[in-house]
């Protein structure tokens, strides 16, 4: 199968998945407790106004009509209006996306920087103290809940040692880019410093589980590759051990690792909800929590749909890249 056919096929599958998510998100409103009318209207509102509003919102329409109203605008980017701020949901979600994306990417970078060397050391020094240390680190990382780790990092590194701020995002990458475009490089550099200072703790919090996962994956991949005959042959022909490990073994190990990194990036976007709440990071996760608290259904639905679309897109991209970097994998 050619790459283009593969992409078309996967896109169609992705569309099907997105349709499923949209349908589930639509249905959530109806299986969740609480009459939307009671959420939207003051309790002592005139019954006539109440009936009028319910009718105009279409809440008295048959389910299939409501479903069509909901789904037909989505392809055109119309996710409705927020019930609380009455701004378009799509623009609210889009303005929050950069904060979440940069947090997810920063968490991924933290994870990769720490996990791959750690996994390599762990595999090449199997059953040595370094290996045990890396294994314990992985287990602790996988077992530590995000919210607890975040709070602990704040208490120790921010409140006690005063090394980092406790929360907030005074400037984002988008803001820094604007400064660069304005030619104000000094301010952009300051902004970058501020951004790094603020994103470090949330990135570590979000990336810890991920770090542990990649460490384990790198270790097992390396061990698997080190037992292969091509490694023995490389060593037999006198190739230095460093070249064997890092040019051949690590390279082959990284193929599945890259796949997992790509897939996990999608998970991180959706999984940043708790981290964002702990660090008051104004991203999609915070928007989701606020919309749940305010019972702002359109915003919640829009956010979930955007997360789902992002997840599907990343999956398709990773699948395509995976087959591209590893010719042994066919596009099927």
């Amino acid at each position, binding site marked *: 199968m050619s790459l283009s056919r593969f992409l078309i096929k996967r896109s169609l599958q992705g569309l099907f998945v997105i349709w499923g998510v949209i349908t589930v998100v639509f249905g959530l409103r109806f299986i*969740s*407790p*609480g*009459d939307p009318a*009671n*959420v*939207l*209207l*003051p*309790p*002592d*509102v005139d019954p006539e*106004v109440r009936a*009028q*509003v319910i009718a*105009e*919102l*279409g809440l008295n329409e048959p389910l299939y009509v409501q479903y069509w*109203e909901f789904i037909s605008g989505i392809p055109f980017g*119309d996710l*409705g*209006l*927020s*019930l*609380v*701020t*009455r*701004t*378009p949901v799509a*623009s*609210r979600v889009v*303005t*929050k996306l950069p904060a979440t994306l940069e947090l997810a990417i920063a968490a991924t970078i933290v994870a990769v920087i720490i996990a791959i060397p750690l996994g390599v050391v762990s595999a090449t020094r199997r059953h040595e103290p370094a290996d045990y240390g890396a294994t314990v680190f992985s287990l602790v990382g996988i077992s530590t809940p995000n919210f607890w780790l975040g*709070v602990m990092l*704040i*208490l120790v590194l*921010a*409140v006690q040692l*005063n090394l980092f*701020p*406790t*929360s*907030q995002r005074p400037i984002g990458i988008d803001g820094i880019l604007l400064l660069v475009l304005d030619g104000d490089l000094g301010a952009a550099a300051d902004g970058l410093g501020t951004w790094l200072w603020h994103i470090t703790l949330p990135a570590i919090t979000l990336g810890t589980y991920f770090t542990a996962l990649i460490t384990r994956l790198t270790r097992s991949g390396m061990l698997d590759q080190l037992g292969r005959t091509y490694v023995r042959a490389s060593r037999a022909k006198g190739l230095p051990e460093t070249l064997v490990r890092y040019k051949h073994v690590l390279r082959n190990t990284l193929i599945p690792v890259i796949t997992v990194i790509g897939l996990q990036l999608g998970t991180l976007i959706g999984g940043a909800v708790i981290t964002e*709440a*702990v*660090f*008051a990071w*104004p991203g999609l996760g*915070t*928007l989701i*929590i*606020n919309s749940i*608290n*305010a*019972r*702002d259904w359109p915003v919640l639905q829009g956010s979930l749909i955007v997360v789902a679309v992002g997840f599907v897109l990343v999956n398709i991209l990773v699948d395509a890249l995976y087959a591209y970097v590893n010719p042994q994998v066919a596009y099927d």
Partner: protein
Amino acid sequence: MTDSNSHIGRRSYLKLAGGAAASAALAGCTGGGDEEETTTAAEETTTETGGEETTTSTPEESTEPFNVTITQGQMPSGLDPQDHRETPTDIVVLHAYDGVLTRDATGAMQTALATNYERIEGENAVRFDIREGVTFHNGEELTPEDVAFSINRVVDEDVSFASPQSDQLAGVASAEVIEGENAVKVNNSSLNPIVFSEFATYLDVMQQSWVEGNSKAFISQNMNGTGPFKLDSYTEDEEVVLSRYEDYWKEPAAVETLTFRAASEASTRVNQLLQGETDVIVNVPPQEVQRVNNNENTRVAAAPSTRIIYNAMRYDVEPFDSVKFRQAMNYAIDLESIVQNVLGGFGAQTSQPTLPEFVGHNEDLDPYPYDPEMAEQLVEESGYAGAEIELNTPVGRYLKDLEISQAVAGYIDELPNVSASVRQRDFGSLVDELLAGSIEERPHWFLIGWGEATFDGGLVMTALLSSEGLLTTWQNEEFDSLLEQAGNQSGDERDATLQEANTLAHEECPWIFLNQQFSVYGVNDSIAWEARSDERIDAYDMSLK
């Protein structure tokens, strides 16, 4: 700053969206209080002859201007002061907009944009004399037309839009400028005994030409009031920055720049305060109070709020149809212990539906004492010995709501002749049942909270205990007639009638009377500021220590 149109009619949509906060009165907010904080009674002065202009407190003279950051639990939903129902939005917009009347930190009524207010003899109308020399932030002068327009914008949906605040000015029909005078006449649909109280709590004055000259979307993203602070910048969901308005009609504020941010997690807010990243935080949970107080540069400031927490018992179902059984439930619980141990002292015991700062509070009534023997005996006399009852409670909506419910049910369950348990409920579905049209559809026994910012006991009792009340679980003809009587009275006479109604409610026990919720704030020690009983955070009253 754009607003898109959908298939929903604009007016209806705005009405709907404005109500998105659902019941502002029901909406709980976590908070607490400081047991050492004294409760000061609000002086409700709905005088018939008018109020004298009073001198409100002004900030201390300070040569060193300072900047203040306030972190709330959530950001404002918009900046149109007449198009929301949420306290966090109110706290922000009230720094840029003034009312004709206002309240001080204890809830006592004060004049603001009106210099005098009085009832117009022989008519169901009142008069406000408008202050001269007041300017909006755009430099233009306040006129009585602006005041009348602002009132009509709230009560008349044909003026601008259907404001979700129309019920906050209940009884107000319209407003008009008094010909040739710098005054406004407000027409009421009846006597409206609480009209001044309503204006002291609600109605922010906007400039007519500014409102009419801008789109609704623009108004919800910008501000142009007469308040002590003007808008510098607004980033939706992230930050509102205000700066001192130098031409304010009173002394300019001591605070130079005022920033509002939000953090939904209480521990995040506390950590921000401890690190000096913010200066004032809302809703410090009891378990964090010590950390704030023990920190070198921060303190806790608390005040009794206008929210009452209670257990309603439906009068029409067994075993709650017995007055003796309902009284027994009040004797069965150790309320003092609940306030001290569950709420950490951040609450006050109640004995009646009306809180101490409210009009109609009866000072002669004491909370029911803890007397399990009396409770057991009353249960026997009620004929419902062996009853099994279940308490419906929201979780996390009010300060320590689940823990309070567990304590209440625990005490009652300790009685040898009653079994009690707790059922945790989703707030939305519980509210659905409470807002059901009839008493018969409501849970038999539930915990709920109610806030009433007008400091009026009559409104609380009407909504929660009158036969036609929004959330009532009780029907009592004598009580209804007392409320009806109060509706046609004013001043001391009305106060006395409401006190009588409170006495009746105390004796008949439609509720297990629980606690008055406290508002608890964390404050940077460098700032002189007192917590208010109406949940407002007024930066105008802040000064450097």
